[in-house]
């Protein structure tokens, strides 16, 4: 296929640039054509603050490595930053994983000592988690009852929350971070924990409705005073 037959459309808007990449040609041709386009007429991308770029692959199936190679190509040819990848085609396994992550597992009763509830998505528990019990979820954990055991949410690194009507876990964590102490003023209260800017925040339940602004607010306010590696509850006036 001749190079000029490869369709690469670049549209500019207030939000940045959108690259519409030909879904029908061979991938190598696409890279080659893209490089040629970037080498050419777009000198003014080379300077200044990075311009945000959205990649549209259309109906082409691309692997993560292929996305990365396109990303690398674009970012090395000027002051450009790929912020989003839009694709219409996904691998079956990827879709199944996405569906699992979005599923909600509902449990009724007490998660007792020695018992483990695991979920590929979110967990809704109508009951308590007793000391020695554990909930481990790839998504969020919502507990209509007492959380006295362990709760680990977002274990694969997805964004997640742990919400409990009575928050007194022996250990709680999101992603890679976990803590074993609840701030005194929220111990046994209705509360939730969220991961934000690599820190775990414990907040009263009523501030849940103000997400995500409340996290911006508390992260800003307490940046200077937060001791490392300790859970803390910002004083909120919501």
């Amino acid at each position, binding site marked *: 296929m001749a190079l000029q037959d490869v369709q690469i459309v670049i549209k500019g808007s207030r939000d940045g640039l959108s690259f519409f990449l030909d879904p029908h040609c061979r991938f190598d041709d696409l890279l080659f054509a893209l490089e040629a386009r970037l080498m050419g007429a777009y000198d003014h991308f080379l300077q200044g603050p990075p311009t945000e770029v959205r990649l549209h692959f259309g109906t082409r199936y691309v692997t993560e490595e292929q996305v990365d190679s396109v990303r690398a190509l674009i970012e090395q040819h000027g002051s450009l930053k790929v912020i989003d990848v839009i694709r219409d085609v996904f691998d079956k396994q990827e879709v199944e994983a996405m569906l699992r992550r979005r599923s909600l597992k509902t449990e009724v009763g*007490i998660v*007792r*000592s*020695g*018992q483990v509830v695991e979920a590929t998505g979110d967990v809704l528990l109508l*009951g*308590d988690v*007793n*000391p*020695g019990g554990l909930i481990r979820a790839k998504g969020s954990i919502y507990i209509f009852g007492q959380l*006295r055991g362990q709760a680990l949410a977002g274990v694969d690194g997805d964004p997640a929350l742990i919400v409990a009507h009575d928050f007194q876990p022996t250990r709680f964590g999101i992603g890679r971070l976990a803590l074993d102490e609840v701030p005194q003023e929220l111990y046994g209260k209705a509360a939730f924990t969220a991961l934000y800017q690599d820190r775990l925040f414990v907040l009263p339940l009523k501030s849940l409705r103000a997400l995500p602004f409340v996290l911006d607010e508390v992260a800003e306010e307490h940046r200077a005073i937060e001791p490392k590696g300790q859970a803390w509850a910002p004083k909120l006036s919501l």
Partner: protein
Amino acid sequence: MGEAIVITSGKGGVGKTTTTANVGTALAMIGKKVALVDTDIGLRNLDLVLGLENRIVYDLVDVIEGRARLEQALVKDKRFEERLVLLPAAQIKDKTAVQPEQMAALVHELVARFDFVLLDSPAGIEQGFQNAISGATQAIVVTTPEVSAIRDADRVIGLLEKNGLGRAKLIINRLRLQMVKRMEQVSVDEIVHILGVDLLGVVPDDEIVIKMTNEGTPTVVDTRSKAALAYRNIARRMLGESVPLLKLEEKQGVFNKVLKMFGMS
């Protein structure tokens, strides 16, 4: 057709055997036919608590292995017109001598002939525990007001639920009211809240239980002690009566008793 009730706790030393002996005796005193089964093979001691050690001829393993008929192995307690019998555990074998199916068959046979079959479970959650629960249709979990015992009780309740013995009943043993008042012991409400099961009774800590256990007489025959009353109340609740919990704080002096006699208090 009676009921087969396993009495278990997870943790050792909380009073499973004492509870089995006393609750069983209390039921016999009310007039029920009761069989007590010691499933703690290799560490038998229910016979000691009942004072029946000298009368053991055959044991549970003898019955299961066909060396004796069930009838021969049952030790009858003459104090209660033979309404109370004990099936003792073997002392020279270990837990692996019995399989859960054999136990279930044995319990099934007993249930046909007695109103209550109480199965005294060994501590732990291994084979002995599995044996003890295999024939049971109901469970009583014994705990003391200590975090370790409560934690183990929680674990055991979870295992019972998994084995189709949901809705276990709870007996809190050795409660010391003075310590609860000083916030040094976990309160009854707290324990019931954590474990989330129905409370069958609370037995106060009483030195007379230890004394009488050592003598081989179940405490429950002594009419004066609070622990004995607690055990009787538990037996009555098992028969479906609604009996209020003992008021443990009441410490009546002679003066108060006199006042009460005259209706002045």
